[in-house]
């Protein structure tokens, strides 16, 4: 768990300061230096791509973009999931049954294809990527929050708020939501790798982040075209993406076990 957290911190640091370390621009092309292997000379530590762009800067920006999309998308899923789950759990009765039936129905759908459909319909809109990926992952969140809310709403402080005439909307936002945040934060760690997968899948197919901007998924896609002559273009982003996903999964698993053990006590 500590190792995973450490790896993620390094990746986060790379995403923040990485692009500044190198003197090259991420979109600057140099047609005298196409597909150059990684070298210390000329500061192209990860080599150059087919347009002579510096791969180090592009990789760092790719990490940044991948993390950014994943985190923002997870926040979107957090907002939707917490709101939905808290309302269903707090209102209860027939509304709850109907809302949860809807969630069950959505579970049976291959969401990724709907995201692609959205991408086709609305062009590759940058903001849409965040929202669409966030909209996939809120189902688990809604279920967890609903369960928590049902046990919270019988507690004295919620009852006291209700008796003093606080409105339902205010009770949910001010009293229920803050109290479910702990468990929600743990599940976010498991939502982030899923969001990364979806984003890089879309970018790999050319439907996600558009050039000259880049993400780890689109870097892998670029690398595939030149893997026979310039394998580093594929191997560097592929390794980083795999490392990132594994670290999130290990960390999320460990955190969940830790919190579950604590709650079981």
């Amino acid at each position, binding site marked *: 768990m500590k190792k995973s957290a450490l790896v993620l911190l390094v990746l986060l640091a790379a995403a923040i300061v990485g692009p500044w370390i190198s003197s090259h621009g991420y979109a600057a092309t140099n047609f005298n230096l196409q597909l150059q292997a990684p070298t210390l000379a000329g500061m192209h530590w990860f080599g150059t791509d087919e347009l002579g762009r510096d791969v180090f800067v592009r990789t760092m920006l790719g990490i940044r973009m991948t993390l950014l999309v994943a985190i923002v998308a997870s926040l979107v899923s957090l907002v939707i999931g917490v709101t939905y789950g808290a309302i269903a759990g707090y209102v209860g009765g027939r509304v709850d049954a109907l809302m949860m039936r809807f969630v069950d129905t959505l579970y049976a759908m291959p969401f990724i294809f709907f995201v692609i459909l959205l991408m086709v319909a609305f062009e590759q809109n940058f903001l849409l990527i965040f929202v669409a990926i966030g909209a996939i992952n809120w189902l688990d969140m809604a279920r967890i929050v609903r369960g928590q809310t049902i046990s919270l709403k019988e507690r004295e402080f919620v009852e006291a708020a209700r008796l003093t005439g606080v409105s339902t909307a205010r009770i949910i936002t001010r009293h229920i939501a803050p109290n479910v945040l702990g468990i929600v934060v743990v599940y976010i760690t498991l939502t982030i790798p899923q969001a990364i997968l979806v984003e890089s899948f879309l970018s790999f197919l050319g439907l996600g982040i558009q050039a000259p901007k880049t993400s780890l998924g689109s870097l892998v896609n670029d690398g595939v075209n030149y893997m026979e002559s310039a394998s580093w273009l594929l*191997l560097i982003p592929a390794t980083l993406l795999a490392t990132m996903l594994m670290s999130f999964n290990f960390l999320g698993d460990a955190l969940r076990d830790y919190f579950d053990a604590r709650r079981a006590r």
Partner: protein
Amino acid sequence: MLRYTLLRLAGAIPTLLLVIALAFLMVHAAPGGPFSNERAASPEVLENLEKHYRLDEPLPQQFVHYLGNVIRGDFGPSYRYVDYTVSELIAIGFPLSLQLGALAMMLALLVGVSAGTAAALRQDSLLDRALMSFAMTGISIPVFVVAPVLVLLLSVKLQWLPAGWSGSNGAAKFILPVVTLALPQIAYVARLTRASVIDVLSRDFVRTARAQGLATKTLVRVHVLRPAMLPVLSYLGPAIAAILTGSVVVEEVFGIPGLGQFFVRGALNRDYTLVLGIVILYASLVIAMNLLVDILYGVLDPRVRQR
């Protein structure tokens, strides 16, 4: 049992309708029509095109019409592949994708269940730990990373297997795509099987069978595997969805002319009807698989039917 089956079937139909409605709305809410990025056509031509494809009618009417056609298996004409209907394109691409998917699924079940059972029987041994770290790796690394890396290693560097689809024939060209597609599913199935077998092994009836002197082999085959397979069975629905998603990537990387490739091309070319048709087909497959799993569950576990 019949009542249970019918109830499940009745539950799947609204889901399917919801899927079709959602997909239809998404495509039609898009800014700009399917012909808006064509070279400037005269208004008369556009009007005729819209009339031809019934785009001038009100949306609910279009939807009812589309739904009626879909039920008859007609997804309309493709907007980009001129002279082809979407159904014809599906008929061209689907058999190959189905073959790939079915092979990957069989491989995943065979290897996953064997590995999971072996790991569970020697819990905490070196074999168990090796298999489980392998499984965690398989789950974490996406198909579109595994596929090109395997091609680079096995086809380009070592030249053991053909890299592309066209130009090579025989069974060898199936090996890499199927293995790549199956890998993450092998990992999931192995993890599920292991947890489930360990759980069943701790039950009383297993202890009794052991006390009666049953050999481990017979015990596992006769008493353990059947109840242990229930969680694996319920994973089949998500597995189908994952294999469909994965096949899009695998077909793209290996250049296999299947449905996944049509889907990606259609998405990049903004071929609305083609993408809409394939999404509906994929969703129906997933829903049908979930339905089948529900019914099989009812067959295998009578308690489920009572609820």
